[in-house]
């Protein structure tokens, strides 16, 4: 479960204040799949980073499965991110020097337990995304669709309870976008909370609910 309570984030640039998040309240249950839409600069990415424990809000609290992310230490927050949150980015952000399998396994960095199990799971995920034949290839040898599938597999490796996807289909053709959206849908069906930031009508149609964001505030569409 994801809960944002009166979350405020303001950027100050050259004397100007930009209210990226204005007292945002959001409560998502397990398995809920929401799409957040809005114009560029309305605070969508800030919302995602704040919800993911990567950007401390000025005010308010963020809770994931009962853990208040910004009331724990940095190391504990990192552990929560690793265990409970999966990120998917528009630019994939695969590590260029690691092969596909190692990229998926990069989500285990810092952990010493269950590595064999994680590797088995990584192999299964790659099979699920039809990427087994590419497991030893580097990101530079993959198509954009394949890259995003690997990024999805990485996000899913630790069986998170929350997936935060920032324009995951923004660079993909319809066919590859569908693969990602179907996967997000499937995750949601399995009880994973999914937050999808998108401009795309097709993508937002895959979600249970669509939330509109404007000038740092959320409005249910």
């Amino acid at each position, binding site marked *: 479960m994801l809960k944002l309570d009166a979350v405020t984030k303001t950027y100050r640039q050259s004397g100007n204040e930009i209210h990226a998040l204005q007292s945002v309240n959001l409560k998502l249950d397990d398995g809920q799949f929401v799409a957040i839409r809005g114009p560029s600069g309305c605070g969508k990415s800030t919302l995602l980073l704040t919800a993911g424990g990567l950007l401390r809000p000025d005010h308010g609290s963020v809770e994931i499965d009962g853990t208040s992310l910004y009331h724990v230490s940095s190391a504990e927050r990192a552990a929560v991110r690793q265990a409970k949150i999966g*990120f998917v980015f528009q630019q994939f952000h695969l590590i260029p020097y690691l092969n596909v399998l190692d990229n998926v396994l*990069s989500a285990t960095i*810092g952990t010493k337990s269950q590595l064999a199990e994680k590797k088995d799971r990584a192999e299964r995920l790659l099979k699920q995304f039809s990427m087994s034949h590419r497991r030893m290839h580097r990101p530079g040898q993959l198509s954009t669709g394949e890259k995003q599938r690997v990024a999805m597999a990485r996000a899913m490796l630790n069986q998170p309870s929350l997936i935060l996807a920032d324009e995951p289909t923004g660079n993909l053709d319809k066919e590859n976008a569908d693969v990602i959206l179907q996967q997000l849908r499937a995750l949601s069906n399995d009880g994973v909370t999914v937050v999808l930031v998108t401009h795309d009508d097709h993508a937002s149609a895959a979600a249970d609910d669509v939330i509109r964001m404007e000038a740092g505030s959320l409005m249910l569409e």
Partner: protein
Amino acid sequence: MGVGRMILMEILHRKWNFLLLLLVLGMVVAYALTSMQIIAAEQQQTEAKVAAMDDDIRKTMKDLGFNINILPKDQQLVDFYANDFADKTMPYEFVQRLADSEFVSSLNHLRPALIQKVDWQEQNRQVLMMGVSGVVPWTHRSNAKKPMSDPVPADSMNIGSALAKQLGVQKGQDVVLNGETFKVNKIYDPRGTKDDITVWIDLKRAQTMLNLPDRINLIQALECNCASIDRLAEIEKEISGVLGEDVQVIELSASATARAKARTNIANEGKLRLAELAKTSRTRTQWLVALGAAVVGFLAYFNVRQRQFEVGVLRAVGAPTSRILMLFVGKLLLAGLLGAVAGIAISLAACKLGLVGVEGISSNNWFAHISGPTLAAVFVLTPALAVMAGWLPAAIAAGQDPALILSEE
């Protein structure tokens, strides 16, 4: 996912960055180690030169010996050198005490003499008259060696060549010196020294003529055989052990003396050259280390810039700051260790191929000049240098705000 594996994969991916790191660190290590080789070779050469001189001096002393004069203690040397004889005298007994001593081992051929410049009234000229008694035999030593000089018979006189020529005397002829008659026993061949205007007579007769009974003013010790370079001190010690402080010892100019001085000069010049070399090498090494550190720092910073999205993603997937730091520091540590190996290899290769341009340096004696602790220090200090130089960029990378990086896309 292990950090070690990620480090290795990243190194293989960005080979040039790592190779440049290795090259820079390797060059710093190679320069420092090769400088040590040069200094060690210079030191060895200087020591070899000094040792050769020492050996030469010893051989000279052994084969040729050297001569000393034993003079009365109160004799002013300036007068001795000006007059060619000592105006002070000492008892003849001194030479006998030396000959009787078991303590004296470095002296050979003790030859007492009483020398004075006298007016040869009959010839109306001044000559050096030397009363001699030949070599005094050793009491406790073998006297098998052929004496350095024979005594002059009591009724005879030996004459230097120039004097004999001017006086027109011949061997066997009688001559009168201040009322004393002598038979010319020997006329020496020209020697090119004051010997050519000297007359030699029996010591006893000279003592009588000069009214100095049982007195002498010189003991010549010929072909002394000291092994040490500081032989005069050694001889003085032996003589003072027998005669106390009643005499003084001077060394006659000899090739051995010149060699000893040259040896001292070489040793001193070698020390100066080594000190200068060490100073230059130290300064250059310090500059090179600073330059190397700057380049390593730049390469580390460049690497961090290249990998900022990677850092952002790793932070997003839950990698703690310490792991990110380890990714960069681990790479620097590995670069340091391999840089040390590369430096040793470069230094060895430079020595083997003769690129150093200093005599006496080769890869054969490379390890002889570098001690175990020095090698150990290289393997500790090089990674330390790499980590220190790259620490700041690595810390910056680890401390990067992932939100800032990831929102840059």
